Each structure stands twice: as structure tokens, then as C-alpha cells.
């Protein structure tokens, strides 16, 4: 059963140096507050899995938490590059970063295979694509019935999955609405799951029976962090801070500016600051 804890406890009890971690949320519901707690607790040598590393992994990489990333699109959406990711990969700052690169279809399939308890994902992919030549984790298998040559990659089964969701009920069940991405798959594929939520409500009696609900017993720790997805968004609560994504580029372009920003906005503050960050982005529910 899910345990209600503080974000600090959730990270301290579940995330350890050297872990393989997936923090998911496809543009929507990205668990930024949880990542900041990982940075504050100075976790090291992490293998970070995420389809779109986004600002959340740019920050973890720049602060030296990552040994390796597994990803499928490493840009700042609509803006350009992830400067810290590139600096780490191209110039080994703050240290060397390994990468394992896939396509979105491959990673989505690998999460699903992980949730299904399979060792690998099989799909029609990478046809004529050169990633297959440079990534040894992309192989071919032959369909035993038709002979079609299909792509196979290892399933994703992380030590820890971390997501942000709209709400939990008092029983610890978790509701995700809107763009649901690969979060359900990531949670079910992982050994331990941490969820941050906007709020805790009494029950889900008013929730549609087919809604995306993760039962309490699939989650280890739940922490309430209002605004915890910022600068990503939580549908029904606050909008995406597109201006922040644009403004991140000059900050991340300069090592000193980045370190100063992280000190002032991550290291010296706590998760309660996120509520202020979304105060002017709230939408009527």
C-alpha cells in the first residue's frame, strides 16, 4: 500500500546512488519537484531513463547526478538544445556522460514490455535508420509465423519510477488525466514507484470508471507537492510555463549562470516553493 510521506522522505527511502531511474511525463506532468529533491540529496551515478530528457534531466545532468541517460529526443521543446546535456556529452562537464539513444516508438514499446514483465519489446521499427548501427541494444528478430524481421530492444525495468499526478485519494490510489504519456507503464515496470500529487481528496467517486487510476498497491510513496510539475503543467490545475522553457536557454548556456540558478532556485529552497511558481498560471477547474 502506498505510504503518504514528505518528498524528502520519499526520495531518501527509495533513491540510491547507482540506481536506474525513470522520471516520466510526456511534456505534461513532469516531476520537476522530485528531481530537485534528488539533486538536493546529492544522488550520484544514476542511469536516467526518459523519452524526452527535457529541462528536468538537463538540470540533473548539469548537477552531476547522471552517469548515463537512455532517451529518444533530447531537445528543449520548441526552443532548441538541452545545453547541459550537450556540454556533458560533448565536453564531459561536469563529468563524462554515457548515452543510449532510441526512437520514441522503441522506448514506448520498451516501457510497455517492462510493465508486462517481458524481457524485450518487439515492434516494426528502425527500418533503414542508422541508430541500429550504433546502438548495440537494437537487434532484429524474425516473426516465427510470417518471417518478418522486426526490431527488438530490451524492456525498461527501472529500480525506481517517479511521476507527478493530479491527485490521490485517502486510500492512496492515484489519478492521472490528460496527456498520460508512459507514466502508467513506467510505474508498473519499476521495482519502486514514487508519485507526487497536487492534492489528496477523500475518494474518487466522481471519477469515470475507465479513468487512468493506479491502485494504491502499485505505488510505494506518495508526497503532496503543489505545483510539483512546474515549468511543465498539470491539466486542470495550471498551464505549461512556455516562457520559462524559453528563458531556460540562456541560463543553461552558461556554466556559471546555471550553477547560480540551481543554487538559488533548487539547493537553497524546498518543495514548498513550487506552489508559488504556479500561482499565476492557475486555471479554473
Amino acid at each position, binding site marked *: 500500500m502506498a505510504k503518504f510521506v514528505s518528498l524528502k522522505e520519499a526520495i531518501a527511502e527509495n533513491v540510491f546512488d547507482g540506481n536506474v531511474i525513470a522520471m516520466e511525463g*510526456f*511534456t*505534461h506532468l513532469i516531476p520537476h519537484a522530485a528531481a530537485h529533491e534528488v539533486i538536493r540529496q546529492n544522488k550520484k551515478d544514476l542511469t536516467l531513463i526518459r*523519452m*524526452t530528457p527535457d529541462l528536468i534531466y538537463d538540470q540533473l545532468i548539469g548537477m552531476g547526478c547522471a552517469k548515463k541517460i537512455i*532517451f*529518444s*529526443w*533530447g*531537445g528543449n*521543446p*520548441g*526552443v532548441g*538544445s*538541452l545545453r547541459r546535456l*550537450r556540454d556533458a*556529452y*560533448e565536453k564531459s562537464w561536469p563529468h563524462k556522460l554515457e548515452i543510449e*539513444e532510441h*526512437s*520514441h*516508438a522503441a522506448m*514506448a*514499446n520498451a*516501457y*510497455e514490455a517492462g510493465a508486462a514483465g517481458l524481457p524485450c519489446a518487439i*515492434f*516494426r*521499427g*528502425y*527500418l*533503414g*535508420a*542508422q*541508430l541500429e548501427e*550504433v546502438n548495440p541494444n537494437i537487434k532484429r528478430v524474425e516473426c516465427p509465423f510470417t518471417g*518478418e*524481421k522486426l526490431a527488438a530492444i530490451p524492456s525498461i525495468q527501472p529500480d525506481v519510477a517517479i511521476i507527478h499526478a493530479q491527485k490521490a485519494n485517502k486510500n492512496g490510489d492515484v489519478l492521472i488525466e*490528460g*496527456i*498520460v*504519456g*508512459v507514466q*502508467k*507503464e513506467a510505474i508498473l515496470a519499476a521495482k519502486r514507484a514514487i508519485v507526487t500529487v497536487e492534492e489528496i481528496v477523500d475518494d474518487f467517486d466522481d471519477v469515470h470508471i475507465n479513468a*487512468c487510476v493506479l491502485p494504491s498497491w502499485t505505488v510505494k510513496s506518495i508526497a503532496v507537492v503543489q505545483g510539483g510539475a512546474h515549468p511543465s*503543467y498539470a*491539466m486542470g490545475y495550471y*498551464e*505549461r510555463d*512556455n*516562457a520559462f*522553457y*524559453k*528563458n531556460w536557454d540562456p541560463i543553461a548556456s552558461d556554466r556559471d549562470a546555471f550553477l547560480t540558478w540551481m543554487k538559488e532556485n533548487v539547493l537553497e529552497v524546498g518543495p514548498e516553493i513550487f506552489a508559488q511558481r504556479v500561482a*499565476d*498560471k492557475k486555471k479554473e477547474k
Partner: protein
Amino acid sequence: MSYTPTEMMTIAAARAIRNDDVCFVGIGMPSAACNLARLTHAPGVTLIYESGTIGTKPDVLPLSIGDGELCDTSVTTVSVPEMFRYWLQGGRISVGFLGAAQLDKFGNINTTVVGGDYHNPKVRLPGGGGAPEIATSCGEIFIVMKQTNRGFVENIDFITSLGHGKTGKEREELGVKTKGPSRLTTDLCIFETDPATKEFIVTSIHPGVTREQIQENTGWTVRFADQVIETPEPTAIELDALRALNERTAKAHAGK
């Protein structure tokens, strides 16, 4: 009415979208063209973004592939594994609309690395995202991209997403059943794919643009079709719709 080359490119790209298309939309220029088509001649087009939003009708262009606007205005929103498995791989998309950093005359796309090799690149780009499978699973591929000889090259540094391969025969050899790149719209002209060689050939030149200008901005020797037409100028309806869309978008994404 005067207009910019970028406006001509977006409008020319939008015109290729048909009312009954189911379109997998990339962010940036493809998204502008697809939504312009929906707001003008193709109100029935189904726009799909890889974040899982199906049949979306955004009022402003999204900055990211998963802006809330896309979900709020969709017919339904599915998970990302479902999107790639049932909808894309399942063969339910008629057109994939892509951009590129580097492109060759066979429509092969590079969005991974420029210069050096994969492991030691001069410039590391964001990567493929959904494009490698979009390129082979959609019925056909439309590409929209500003024409420069840095982007339009004889040999791309890395094939992120398959066009017609290095010789024009690779799709068939790999058993790919979809058509691949069939149309490339730039700020200077429209290329279509030669059915025999699978190379891009210029079939329509935008008003005021010369053949020399097209060649100067292309890294391969450009072939022109026997019958090259002049692209019709943007109409007032097209320009008004595009400018209103851009204005709403700029306002929505400005710092609040």
C-alpha cells in the same frame, strides 16, 4: 498583398493537406502548415500529435508536442505506447509531416549529429523522437523546411529517418510498404518525388524565385521537371488565417 518567403512556404505546404487526411504532425513548421490547412481548405483533417492527442483543433500553435491546448481540443487522448502501436504502427495515418536539420535528394532525414561521427559529433542535435517510425509507417511523408545549402546536402551525416535510402531502392529492399517522402516544400519551391528514380525534382517555383537561386541553396545538382509551374501566390484568405494564427500564438507564449 505582400508576403514573406516563410509565409509562402507555410501556405504552399498547407495546400497539400487533403480534407480526409489523417496527419501525424511534427512540431514547428509542420504544425503551422497542418493547422493552417485545417483553418482554411481542410476543416475535416484529423491532426495527431505523438503525445497521444487525436483529432486535435488547437486555437494557437503548441510550443511543445504536448501543450495542454492539444489535449483540451482533441477527440480523444491516448497513451504514448498506444499512439505508436495502434495508431502509427497499425497503419492508420495517411500523412506524416516532418521537418529536418539535414536532408538529401532522396528525402533521407538527419536530426541526430552533424560533423564527425555518431560517437564524436561536431554538433549533437536532439535526435529522432518519433520520426524514424513515422517515416516508414505513415502512408506518405511531406517535408517542409527552409532551403539552404547547409541543410540540403549531397550526403547527410546520419540517417535518422529513412527516405528513399542512398540509391532510391532501399524501401523496397527492406520491405517497407509505405510511399515515403513524396513532397518537399521550401521557401523557394516545391519538390516532388520522381516516380522512377525517387529523387526530388522541382515541380513548382514560388513567384519571383529563379532556378539559379534554387540551385545556389541546394547542395546537390537540382533537377527540374519537364513542366514546372509557378506556385500560385498566397490568397488573402490564406494570409489572413496564417497571420491571425501566428498572432494568437505569439500572444499565448509570451511571458505572463
